């Protein structure tokens, strides 16, 4: 990797001001960033280490929600008693990702910024990539695209968002808290990610120097939750399709439901259309099927990933079945 400056600020304020210069990056667990630096995909001039900032707490909120510090490790979050009890979908999603070693390093804030596994993005010798080198083109569209996205794609990028945690966070409608040179703000997770459009290198609403400090997860609408991840092998693989479901069922009918999908979108994919189909309906296979159809209505497959449309439907149907059982 290239040489870089290394800063180790003692406070969030200091971190934010240190990272305002061009070419600066925050480093938390480093499980994505260091990889990409070794591959010369990321070439930061300065790394601002946020590992020692006081952002590693998980705290219950007066409204019954949960506040999760950006530096809370994936393992700690997955096994936190409140998460296991009230946000099982999040715990399941976290534990379906990566490996124990990686989960021990990866952080909540870092995972929200996890970058795609598109092989053309991750290899600087693999030809054009609009995400890596804006304006050069997309090698995946008519290249190897079996694992690429079918929702939210553009003519410029079809890279899949790889995270599991973010899919569960999306179904749980988490709120992301940010501190930056211009002050503090919060963004609902569904407004945090950007579609690739013609600027696939811009993946979210963070401005230069802005740091995710924590996430607030509101009280879940129900403890009937499930995260289902489908992939070729049983572990250590990114999702071909995944679904996070939180469902409130009353008298056999779906009172309300939150559905998010992973492995199929260019960002964590909230399936509002599917939710609308289900709301107020009996929890039956026919309605699950209708919801799945609605969720994938806008899907746009490429040469090798058409199966993902059907796979994602089956994933949503099974996740609904398990969550509502």
């Amino acid at each position, binding site marked *: 990797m*290239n040489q870089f400056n290394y800063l180790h600020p003692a406070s969030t304020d200091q971190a934010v001001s240190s990272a305002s210069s061009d070419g600066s990056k925050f480093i938390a667990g480093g499980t994505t960033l260091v990889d990409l630096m070794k591959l010369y995909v990321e070439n930061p001039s300065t790394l601002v280490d946020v590992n020692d900032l006081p952002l590693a707490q998980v705290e219950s909120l007066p409204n019954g929600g949960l506040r999760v510090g950006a530096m809370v490790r994936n393992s700690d979050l997955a096994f936190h008693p409140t998460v296991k009890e009230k946000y099982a979908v999040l715990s399941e999603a976290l534990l379906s990702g990566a490996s124990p070693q990686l989960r021990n390093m990866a952080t909540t804030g870092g995972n929200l910024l996890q970058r795609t596994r598109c092989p053309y993005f991750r290899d600087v010798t*693999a030809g054009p990539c609009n995400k890596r080198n804006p304006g050069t083109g997309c090698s995946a569209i008519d290249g190897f695209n079996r694992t690429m996205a079918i929702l939210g794609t553009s003519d410029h990028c079809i890279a899949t968002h790889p995270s599991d945690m973010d899919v569960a966070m999306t179904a749980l409608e988490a709120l992301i808290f940010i501190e930056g040179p211009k002050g503090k703000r919060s963004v609902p997770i569904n407004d945090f990610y950007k579609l690739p459009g013609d600027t696939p290198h811009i993946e979210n609403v963070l401005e230069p120097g802005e740091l995710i400090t924590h996430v607030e997860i509101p009280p879940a609408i129900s403890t009937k939750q499930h995260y289902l991840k489908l992939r070729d*092998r049983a572990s250590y693989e990114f999702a071909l399709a995944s679904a996070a479901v939180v469902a409130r069922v009353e008298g056999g009918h779906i009172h309300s439901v939150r559905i998010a999908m992973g492995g199929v979108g260019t960002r964590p994919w909230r399936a509002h259309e599917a939710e609308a189909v289900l709301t107020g309906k009996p929890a039956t296979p026919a309605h699950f099927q209708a919801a799945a159809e609605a969720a994938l209505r806008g899907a746009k497959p490429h040469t090798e990933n058409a199966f993902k449309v059907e*796979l994602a439907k089956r994933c949503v149907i099974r996740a609904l079945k398990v969550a509502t059982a």
Partner: protein
Amino acid sequence: MPDAALYTPTAIIGSELPRIDGPLKTSGTAMYAADYHFPHLVHGVPVTSTVAAGKIRSIDTSAAEKMPGVLLVITHDNVGPLFRMAPGGHDGRTSESRPPLEDDIVRYWGQYVAMVVAETIEQAQIAAHAIKVDYDPSSFNVSKVLDDSPTEELPLHTESKRGDAISAFASAPVKIDQTYVTPAETHNPMEMHATVAVWNNPKFTLYETTQGVMNHQHVMAETLGVPRENIQVITRFLGSGFGGKLFPWPHSALAAAAARQLNRPVKVSTNRQMMFQNVGHRPRTQQHMQFSATPDGKLVSLRHDYRNHTNLGDDIHENCGEATPFIYSVPNLLLTSALVRRNVGTPTPMRGPGAVPGLFAVESAMDELAIALKMDPVEFRLKNDTLTDESNGKPFSSRHLKECLQLGSEKFGWSKRNPKVGSMCKPGDPDVILGWGVAAASWGAGHGPCQASVALLNDGTARVSCGTQDVGTGTYTIFAQIVSDRTGIPIDKVRVVIGDSALPPGPTSGGSTCTATVLPAIAEATDNAIKVALATAATAKDSPFHGKKPDGLAFHEARVHLEDRPASTGTPYQQLLKMANIDAANGEGSTSALNSNPEARKYSTHSFGAQFIEVEWDPGIARLRVSRVVSVIDGGRMINKKTAENQILGAVVMGIGMGMLEETIYTPKTGQPLNSNYADYMVPTHADSPSIEVHFIEYPDPILGEYGARGIGEIGLAGVAPAITAAVYHATGVRVRELPVRIERLMQSTVQV
């Protein structure tokens, strides 16, 4: 059954002795090649081509050369003399015949085009990244379709023929006619290839990741143009190889060349990406099968026409017809092969080379023919079993395929199988369909020449040495077992010294022949050392056996005793050696190649096996997993049951990878292996490893020596993939003829729970 003497060993043979090198490995103290460090050691980082074909116009090294710590940039302009192997006459085998940087032509993506040497690995890496290579790219071919017509340069070979397979097939009542494809696979041992080259004029010491220290020495002597005695190759431990480390790869010559130029030790290690580019792979195969049978299930004809891809400079033949001519009784057979060229790195043997992809086609075709015959696939195979190798008329030295199939059926519960597709549900899980499949396995048996030395030392220990190496399979342990078996010296007092080309010449660890090769040499060396000990006992002045005839003495339980008295009445051998002021009783032993033995030439020597596999198919979520395996192996005597079982367990897991996950993807646009990392090129994880039951059918094979051990490294992988696809068909009704099985193919299944 051949008429040859078998020896009755002590209980240490066939025991479940844990590997003696285990503690070194689990404590991190075993020294692997890249672990070696020396004063003034520097690091070489290769630069690899980013085109699949072309000519190097220029290499701009100016920026790199100015970077901190950079000592040397090697290109084809300044690499110095690196030679090709002379054709014929030599007894070493290299991998890529072109020495690195020989010319300015690029023939595959990832070919070495330069190497930077710097004081630290980080400095070398960043400088390597700063090298700018300007290419004049040319067209290339990485097509997956291997339909190229045979040429004068790459002709069609008829490998085996009997009867008239073409006309017999044409008129046969029941037949199948299908093409099967196996993809390029990458070996991916955990330990990546590495060389630490130390130049001490005029001698090179190479710390290597090799499955053959002797072969590596021979090849590097020719490559570097130095006498053999000036090359010493050391591989004390290997983080596995799977065939990928059988023959030297170009990084070894680059490390040596740099060490010679700089007069400093140089370490070169491939990274994971390079593992997919320039250190070999199992080549893609395309196999056309025409099988026919009578309505009652007797094979009428077998035709097997296959091709495999090879690279531009080497003719690497993947011997897919390894088992075809003899695995079943059939009067009409035709086996042909051809090579096609692609812009890929040099292919190289990978566990069960040829036979493993070949048996995917043979056993898949057998399964399809059994279904066409409406016959049970186990019954069909039993009906066509034979004890004669019909390709040459010789009897098998020891063939028990029938018992493998029968025992496997019993252990697996095959009789409970309902042959109807999709008819079996997982007990307790109505969402999941079970599929059961079976396949036969075969792998050749033999041994090469070998020498070994044994010393019975006067401190009560023994030392056994041989210029072979332990790939991680248990070679260290079986050496100690043999010496202990014959002397009664406890295992923990036997020191095994291997992994050094300066030792008595030993075999490459390949072809599952290492065990069969070393055993006779160790046994003879031990017996000769015992003779010396007995002679010492008979002559030493203070010996209780002074004046006795050595013939009347025996050596058991680490004691010399009168042959007609129990060992407990004897004297510890170390006392006798001390009395005579002798350091050690030394013995030498050797094995000659199996084919030099006239008795052995009367037989066909192979191992056999049967794989029974259950898959779980959850159509609701298109999830396929292997859930149960019974593997029955007929491999002669097992010297160590634990390491033997480990071999089969690992091979079966590898077979799950071959069947369901592994494929090296060369992109049509650039020709590069795109999924060149452990996340994108998938092998099974622990979570993918199901319950695997291993059974050995132990008939010691006397043709392979008095211990009757054949070797088992590869047989466990044979048959796994076709048993998986047979099980997948049984569950889904979808026949997968191109590996790996992908769920998108199975989603076409109309079978429902």
